[in-house]
């Protein structure tokens, strides 16, 4: 029992923060926040549904190192993202730009919403008309009776 308690205590004593990112934090919290945002916005190309922040692929580590170095060198977010898209294309961005090739991607939710609203409106109107016609019919029935 005592051994169990000790084991339990030892387990609690260990750190649970096994981060993927092994680099040091930036001393400047603003820079650290920009770094965090950038690596979450960049796709890991090896394991495509992960950001380079979440991936432990070798390439993701290399790309985090590039982002880190560019931030240290005083590059802007745009410059860093441009560095990535020049090499890997828009695919590397989790938020692709609004261009001719991607407009359908961006507008599809709105278009589907409008289409859905139109269908819903039609159905509602049809039901109302049917209900009115029923009411009219029963009026007629009442009148003739």
């Amino acid at each position, binding site marked *: 029992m005592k051994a169990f308690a000790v084991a339990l205590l030892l387990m609690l004593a260990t750190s649970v923060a096994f981060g993927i990112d092994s680099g040091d934090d930036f001393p400047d919290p603003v820079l650290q926040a920009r770094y965090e945002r950038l690596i979450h916005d960049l796709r890991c190309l*090896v394991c*495509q549904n992960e950001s380079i922040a979440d991936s432990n692929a*070798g390439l993701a580590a290399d790309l985090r190192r590039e982002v880190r170095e560019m931030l240290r060198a005083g590059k802007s977010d745009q410059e860093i993202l441009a560095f990535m898209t020049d*090499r890997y294309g828009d695919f590397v961005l989790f938020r692709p730009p609004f261009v001719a090739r991607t407009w359908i991607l961006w507008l599809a939710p709105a278009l589907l919403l409008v289409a859905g609203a139109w269908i819903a409106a039609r159905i509602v109107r049809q039901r109302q008309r049917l209900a009115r016609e029923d009411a009219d019919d029963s009026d007629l029935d009442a009148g003739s009776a």
Partner: protein
Amino acid sequence: MLRYLLPLGGLAVLVVFLFFGLHREPSIIPSPLIGKPAPPFSLPSVTDPSRQVTNATYRGRMYVLNVWGTWCVGCREEHSALLAIARTNVVPIVGLSWKDDRPLAIEWLKQLGDPYVECAFDADGRVAIDWGVYGAPETFLVDAQGRVIHKHIAPLTEAIWQRDFLPRIQAAAGTRP
């Protein structure tokens, strides 16, 4: 009538998208480098670290850049094809050893044969990033003007070489000023 046609139309659109989706390989990402100048590099040679390998050597000539690593199964798979292509002497094949262990890379070339005119050693993967490499093996074709004209992702075979590379090499050689 419309209430039957609408869902049917929606289904038809979905089927068309899914059908074309079947023939797309999501792991192959088109390179933005095609038609652009090849990123310059100068790295130590795998076999002789005191010697620099640079693509400036090939100015005015076509060349192939093959990215590989001894940790890469696909590279072992394509190696015999690379050797066969190298024997045809159509264009020089430059190697880029990506994030590898130098003794292992040297051993690999000794054991399996060396298809490369020279091979650069990219220890920290920076040149690979410049070329937009994300998974070995990758093979680039660079024309005499120093522009990347084709990129093949996944193991190369002689059939792919004949289908995708040779026609481009011939076309590029024909339009040379």
